[in-house]
């Protein structure tokens, strides 16, 4: 037998075979992926709404009392499974009836909530006033719940009858807006399910609650490391109230590795609506002509709902002087932050704690801001440092105060991966260096930054304060200015992280809590003046409460500024637009 008689594999043939096998495996893999991903719903795609941007890890808890509960069961999220009494609408500031039909204030110290008489849990039992009382009373027995501060504002909560809840406000510090905010943001739990759990578990937030019983229009279907899916509950009590059910039969949230993966899926139409920071989203429709939209079709594309702050630690030497903080505020280029760090999703931030657009606009005083506030003006920053503070610039380009205090080295920190805030701090650091401050950025893990900020162990940090809610802008003023109930350095604070203190603030804050309309605007104006004179925090940009982006390849009817059939949000009243969607194919 000669060598030629044996079939031999040449190198070329071998490589061709490997390439073919690889291509085959890739093709097969794609088919399989298709079957387990979007294809899992098969012909159901037209009935399924794919949502992204909320859940980034495999679900381990569906407990509404756990801040890390799977979407949407954690506090103040889309009311698919659990519902709250009201849904806050960020466009008009109104509380829409959900489990409640309305709220009344018979006197200055009492609130009365009327319940939907036909509301029912998924297991058929009625939703009653006792469920509401049980839920909010957990703040007394289990102080780790998200609404632990409820009894700071309410004296008591009682069921007057099966469908009426009466809340007595704290007579010393009545604050109906904060109570309404907590009622709107927190889900009502079924007492018959949770009373035994509460009796048995001290740490109620750690109960996984993997078979959740809610009152909302969807029930939990399946969950895995790749996605979590909900199926419409066709016996939903709200059908009789709204006259219809939400349009999608299924709601699925795929769990992506990161923003980039979610954005790609969204661009390809595998996600219908999402809450993600997506740089230059307009390119998706302008350059690529994808059926994608946002609330506004021009800048800023999103409705502002919160003000990320540069928090100054007022206990740090140098930063303790309000003139130094104001000099820093004048040095920051807010237009550049809006254009680059926020990808044009923000107007340049103004020096006020009140949002100039939307529901808070009624309180915004442009003249006050122009007179007492700051804007990007490096010359003014230099003037404050040299003429007011008599600071001298050293050979290293950094100013020193007359007592020898050097303006730095300070770090400006925010968690790694929060790319828009990281970029904003890079701009801050560059601007500050140019103005004679020694500021460097630092991007630790989120848990590290959270601890540092809450304990006051930082120089400068980009962090959040209260967004738009039934209690804004009051809650934001408290978060920035009020030092009552703020612990000393080293102990976790939940607002006023920079430990700012001003003797005039408490009385004004308490007064503002009881006022509305023009009277409230006047007090907020005084508080804003204190803020602008002291700059304990520096507004860096505006951000929506939820980024709102939709792809109308499969579903149409998403609300926009031209067709405002619902608010551009997922939480609270955001559930409204789910009822108005229509399959694109029909």
């Amino acid at each position, binding site marked *: 037998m000669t060598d030629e008689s044996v079939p031999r594999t040449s190198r070329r043939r071998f490589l061709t075979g490997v390439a073919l096998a690889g291509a085959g495996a890739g093709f097969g893999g794609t088919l399989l992926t298709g079957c387990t991903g979007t294809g899992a719903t098969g012909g159901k795609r037209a009935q399924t709404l794919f949502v992204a941007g909320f859940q980034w890890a495999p679900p381990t808890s569906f407990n509404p009392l756990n801040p890390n509960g799977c979407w949407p069961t954690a506090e103040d999220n889309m009311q698919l499974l659990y519902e709250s009494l009201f849904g806050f609408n960020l466009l008009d500031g109104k509380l829409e009836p959900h489990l409640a039909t309305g709220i009344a204030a018979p006197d200055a110290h009492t609130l009365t909530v009327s319940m939907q008489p036909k509301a029912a849990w998924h297991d058929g039992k009625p939703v009653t006033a006792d469920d509401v009382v049980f839920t909010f009373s957990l703040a007394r027995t289990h102080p780790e719940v998200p609404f632990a501060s409820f009894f700071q504002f309410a004296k008591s909560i009682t069921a007057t009858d099966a469908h009426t809840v009466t809340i007595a406000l704290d007579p010393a510090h009545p604050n109906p807006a904060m109570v309404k905010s907590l009622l709107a943001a927190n889900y009502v739990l079924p007492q018959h399910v949770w009373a035994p759990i509460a009796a048995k578990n001290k740490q109620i937030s750690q109960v996984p609650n993997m078979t959740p019983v809610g009152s909302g229009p969807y029930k939990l279907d399946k969950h895995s490391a790749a996605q979590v899916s909900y199926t419409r509950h066709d016996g939903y009590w709200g059908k009789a109230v709204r006259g219809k059910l939400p349009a999608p039969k299924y709601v699925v949230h795929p769990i992506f590795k990161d*923003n*980039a993966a979610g*954005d*790609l899926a969204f*661009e390809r139409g595998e996600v219908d609506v999402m809450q993600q920071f*997506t*740089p*230059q989203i307009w*390119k998706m429709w302008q*350059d690529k002509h994808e059926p994608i939209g946002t609330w506004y079709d021009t800048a800023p594309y999103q409705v502002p709902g919160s003000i990320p702050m540069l928090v100054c630690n007022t206990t740090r030497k140098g930063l303790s002087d309000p003139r130094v903080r104001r000099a820093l505020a004048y040095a920051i280029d807010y237009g*550049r932050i809006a*254009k*680059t*760090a926020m*990808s*044009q999703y923000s107007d340049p931030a103004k020096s006020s704690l009140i949002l100039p657009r939307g529901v808070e606009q009624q309180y915004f005083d442009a003249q006050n801001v122009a007179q007492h506030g700051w804007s990007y003006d490096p010359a003014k920053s230099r003037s404050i440092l040299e003429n007011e503070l008599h600071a001298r610039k050293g050979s290293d380009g950094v100013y020193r105060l007359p007592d020898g205090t050097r303006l730095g080295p300070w*770090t400006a920190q925010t968690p*790694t*991966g929060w*790319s828009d805030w*990281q*970029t904003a701090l*890079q*701009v801050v*650091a*560059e601007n500050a260096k140019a103005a004679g401050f020694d500021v*460097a*950025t*630092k*991007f*630790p*893990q989120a848990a590290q930054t959270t601890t540092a900020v809450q304990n006051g162990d930082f120089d400068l940090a980009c962090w959040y304060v209260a967004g738009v809610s039934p209690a804004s802008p009051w809650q934001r003023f408290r978060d920035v200015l009020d030092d009552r109930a703020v612990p000393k350095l080293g102990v976790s604070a939940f607002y006023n992280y920079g430990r700012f203190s001003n003797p005039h603030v408490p009385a004004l804050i308490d007064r503002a809590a009881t006022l509305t309309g023009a009277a409230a605007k006047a007090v907020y104006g005084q508080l804003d003046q204190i803020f602008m004179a002291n700059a304990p925090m520096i507004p860096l940009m505006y951000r929506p409460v939820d980024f709102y982006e939709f792809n109308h390849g499969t579903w149409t009817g998403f609300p926009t500024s031209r067709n405002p059939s619902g608010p551009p949000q997922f939480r609270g009243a955001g559930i409204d637009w789910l009822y108005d969607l229509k399959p694109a194919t029909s």
Partner: protein
Amino acid sequence: MTRLTPRFHVAAGIVAAVLLFGLLGPLVFRGHALGAVVGGLYDHPSGSAWLGTDNIGHDVFTNLMYGTRTSLTIGLVAGLFATLIGVVVGTLAGYRGGAVEEALMGVTNVILAIPSIVVLILISIALGTRSTLAMAVVLGVTSWPWTARAVRAQAASVRTREHLDVARLSGAGTFSLICYDVVPYMLSYLCMAFVLQVSSAVLNEAALSMLGLGPSGGVSLGIMLHWALAWESVRTGAWWAFVPPTVLLTLLAFALLMLQSSLDEVFNPRLRRFVRRRRTTVAAPPPAVRKAEAA
């Protein structure tokens, strides 16, 4: 006299070009200072910004020059550290043998068993603020073990050579023996190990920086890629944000590896391909000639 191969010339040329770009580039191209704002988010390449702008409005070309400089600095310092530690540990183990060898190689093997990227990530997180030098040291102290192992084998071989007996008889001490009679005989290998260490340090720095754990407050090729990924430049079509640093990293790593293998050919006669090919040609004339001869 050993002839340098064309591969060596190509590799050395690329490495020299990248070195010149990183070290002298900022002195030659002075259009924009590092950190100067020349535009907005991912502006297209233009006459004022040849490679466009990055996500924060900085000139990508300027970043590229300074980024190359940082990556090279980290690579060279880390390479030096790793080679130095590897040589000290490996030579001591190989020359002394016995318990010292067992102990040093035991430690080396344990460190080799731990994935260095995990150690790198943990150290980088723990450091918080990381200077360029700190990054280089961290990369250096986590990548010496394989050099130590290889050097040990070389040193153990050199140890048995006769010239060491002569040196010992002349009264040379251990330190003198190692410095003058062992290490110089391994220099060719050490040179190649250093080149490999530089290459792997440059790539490791890029990997760490892409994870957001690069040097603080500066720019490197890895940091440029990190921001390009974070700001989704691939999706938005801003090729100028990720292609230039990728090309430079690839070029540098490729050229260093090629330099190493061509140096290997120079130092190791058995690997000299051109010599082997020439010998083969002489030994086996083409079949056509043989046929003609037979006819």
